[in-house]
């Protein structure tokens, strides 16, 4: 049964430059900057899509404000680098969101940003437009690692960005950091983590650098939600993969788990830690399988029954919503996948286990997943905690795929 969204994701695909390890839907170059940029065209298309999606929700659940149509609890502008859009464009988009979806008074409204001075946006203007959370793609606080990753910013930019955001009135600030960086070391990781903590962010996302191949996964076709990997990025990954190290990565992760727990951080998901009260409501919505609407190229929505996505291609996206022929705007190309009972149960188990809430013990006793849960307990990946809930151990977090594939 479809349910109305509690969250909204808005994908803004522009970046100043492409990072070779990144699989998100991103365009750089002339479309992102300069006289021929498509920022305005995208912003207009996003507003149009918000209108069309809003129409469909109105028809199913009633207009915002009706009993069956709660106001949004979270809005998330992700990318790409959505802060490349002028704050005024962001304000205009959020105005449409408020009008067509309704936004709760205490909603979390996040924007992703890069720390570089020319890409982080104007924090006070963003705050004025309604943004109250910024997630910075810091990735590392070691200069050499940032260069290795092809990042444009330097460590000092991260500190500046954070200070400016605070001064601008942003309530909650996240830093993304990467571990298992090619040719990285345990020492650079602990230094980066300490440097990040010294900046006193509210939230930390610590991601194992994962070098995948979306082309090989069949995700880059015409209706695909990913763009083809460039040749340069492919070569970079081929060189980088042998310079990653499973044992080093595990040690880096374990260090972070201990270090952050010792300082009172709440590790509430495999890759996410928050100071209490700063857990990301948007991301929790994903893990709790609450409905989230999505707009923008490559955006993924979930209505409680069906996962739907827009195709990744920016040009086709804009053409659908702002046809150059003058025809009526229509929804962009994409695809969808309606989950059956088994898919939904597996998703519930996997997403639930990713968080520290885990699952009720009763869930682990039901066939057909019970055998996998038993295996997880036997192999010390799972434990039952004092709340009578089944959760991943730290070892289990690191080896979670071994369990998850048994749950599928």
């Amino acid at each position: 049964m479809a349910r109305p969204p509690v969250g909204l994701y808005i994908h803004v695909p522009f970046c100043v430059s492409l990072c070779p390890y990144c699989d998100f839907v991103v365009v750089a170059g002339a479309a992102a900057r300069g006289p021929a940029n498509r920022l305005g065209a995208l912003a207009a298309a996003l507003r149009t899509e918000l209108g069309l999606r809003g129409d469909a929700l109105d028809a199913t659940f009633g207009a915002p404000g009706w009993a069956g149509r709660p106001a949004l609890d979270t809005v998330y502008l992700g990318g790409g680098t959505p802060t490349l859009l002028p704050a005024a464009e962001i304000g205009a988009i959020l105005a449409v969101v408020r009008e067509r979806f309704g936004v709760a008074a205490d909603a979390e409204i996040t924007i992703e940003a890069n720390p570089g001075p020319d890409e982080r946006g104007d924090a006070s203007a963003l705050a004025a437009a309604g943004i109250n959370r910024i997630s910075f793609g810091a990735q590392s606080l070691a200069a050499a690692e940032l260069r290795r990753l092809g990042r444009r910013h330097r460590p000092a930019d991260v500190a500046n960005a954070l200070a400016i955001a605070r001064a601008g009135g942003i309530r909650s600030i996240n830093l993304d950091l990467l571990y298992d960086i090619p040719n990285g070391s345990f020492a650079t990781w602990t230094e980066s983590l300490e440097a990040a903590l010294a900046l006193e962010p509210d939230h930390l996302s610590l991601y194992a650098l994962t070098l995948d191949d979306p082309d090989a996964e069949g995700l880059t076709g015409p209706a695909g939600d990913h763009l083809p990997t460039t040749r340069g990025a492919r070569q970079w990954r081929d060189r980088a993969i042998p310079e990653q190290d499973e044992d080093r990565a595990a040690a880096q992760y374990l260090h972070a788990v201990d270090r952050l727990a010792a300082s009172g951080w709440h590790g509430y998901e495999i890759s996410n830690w928050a100071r209490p009260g700063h857990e990301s409501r948007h991301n929790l919505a994903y893990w709790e399988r609450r409905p989230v609407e999505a707009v923008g190229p490559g955006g993924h929505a979930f209505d409680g029954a069906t996962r739907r996505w827009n195709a990744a291609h920016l040009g086709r996206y804009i053409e659908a919503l702002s046809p150059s022929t003058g025809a009526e705007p229509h929804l962009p190309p994409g695809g969808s996948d309606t989950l059956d009972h088994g898919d939904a149960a597996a998703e519930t188990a996997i997403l639930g286990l990713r968080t520290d809430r885990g699952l009720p013990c009763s869930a682990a006793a039901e066939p057909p997943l019970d055998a996998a849960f038993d295996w997880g307990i036997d192999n010390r990946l799972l434990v039952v905690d004092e709340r009578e809930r089944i959760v991943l151990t730290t070892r289990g977090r690191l080896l979670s795929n071994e369990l998850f594939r048994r749950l599928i």
Partner: protein
Amino acid sequence: MTNQIPQARLRNFSIIAHIDHGKSTLADRLLELTHTVEGRQMMSQVLDSMDLEREKGITIKARAVRLEYTANDGHVYGLNLIDTPGHVDFAYEVSHSLQACEGAILVVDATQGIEAQTLANVHLAMREGLTLIPVLNKIDLPSADPETIMDELENVLAIPREEVILASAKDGTGVPEILEAIVARIPAPKGDPRQPVRGLIFDSHYDAFKGVIVYVRLASGTLKANDEIKLMASGARAEPLELGVFRPQLVPVKQLAAGEVGYVATGLKSVRDAQVGDTLTTVAHPAAEPLPGYQPAKSLVFAGIYPVSGEDYPLLREALEKLHLNDASFTYEPESSVALGFGFRCGFLGLLHMEIVQERLEREFSLDLIASAPSVEYHVKLLRGGEVAIDNPSLLPNPSDIEVLEEPWVNLSVVTPSSYIGPLMELSTNRRGLFQNMEYLDPTRVVLHFEMPLAELIVDYFDQLKSRSQGYASMDYEEIGYRPANLAKVDILVNGEPVDALSLIVHRDNAQSSGRLLTAKLKELIPRQMFEIPIQAAIGSNVIARETVRAMRKNVLAKCYGGDITRKKKLLEKQKEGKQRMKRVGSVEIPQEAFLAMLRMGEG
């Protein structure tokens, strides 16, 4: 149109040559010149009718064709060309083809000279007492050196240069002379058409409509279309559906008489009932004695053949049965392996034969196969008495139960330009070869003779020979019997469990280095798992090499947000499918690719 030709005007002959010396091209030219096949129907290398034969440029199965040739004397002659396989593995078939002939055209490449199989084939032909017509082929090529090669023929094979015909099968030079020489030099077949029928089966194939079709050379008697026949070795009886000759397609005739070459469509369901070398006679007037020389084809090389997907096992069984109808020279019986599942232990005439059978199974039956490392057959005398033959290393008894272990040896001849003598001597002695002697073919080329264990030959000797001689050396071998050997079985244990498909039998001196190599390679190939996995090489209970695959530390999806869930679920599904294809050795999951890579090691 097929005429009855009197025995005096029949000629039965083969063409013998080293691989690539132009045998098939010459055969094509003979067919063309005698209008057996018209130009417009001519497909290059008509006799090599299997795709695989055309691709590899070799003749696998003997083929026969009847040419009708009007000689310079004005008479029409019936020339039966019996093609022979050109590879060492098929020496057994060659010898039967030659038994059906009175003469042979010896083709030698004028740019290459005598090669190992030239020697082997000439010796076979001489043993059968055949008249040889020496032909130097490819004399149109600028690099042809007929004078030197005629010296070789004279010195090494005692063939007078006056007898040699210079030819180019490609442009037709010398081919009319060859036809005249066949008529003039090769004797007509003998044999009394009124005696009981005795026909030598020199080839056979299975036809879905006519059953087993045997290719026969009648040594005596007259076989009529309605005669009930009997195979003297197998005892099988049949009422033939048809008699005929090869033009080269099968053309029915009413009878075949002594000296003639033709086919009999027996209606039999399996080539095992009518094997090459058997003697065909009639039920009504059976011959008292079969023709000499029948022995079943002997397997020298053995390997397990397994389907890559276990569910293809029934298809593999069916494919082997069907292929065996056509090629009785390989053997197969079911076996199972911990590592590879259910499959068949197969015996082959040699390595090329193994490769051909595997390729035919894969191509003609669309199977994806994995073959275990090839092995020879070992003879084991047990301490408690008795003797067993072992063709699968994993089945070798414990060292403590063995009194004597014997392995097959071969006489190996290597023909090479003298500049490669050093590297080839080194290669051969490293393979436990015992150097016997060296003969000069001419001032720049030699024949090296070795005795060598067959097991050393079948690994990758031929590839090494070619690579160390830049492709110039050639080889031939024949089995010379069993000799005791200081061999050890090295088992590979993963987490304490032996992996049967990886057991190997090696000379004791090489056991440790082989064990180290295998364990190191396997360590690279086994993915890390939830626990630490020791990999050991052992002789009996004595561990000679050890590596460790460390326990898995991390397999985690870092990000799992809106779009990631669907994607990651697909990735996990793929991982799961990958796991399901894995083979389990005890509690360890080993990817099929690891076995493939291990088994291919020897080929590199």
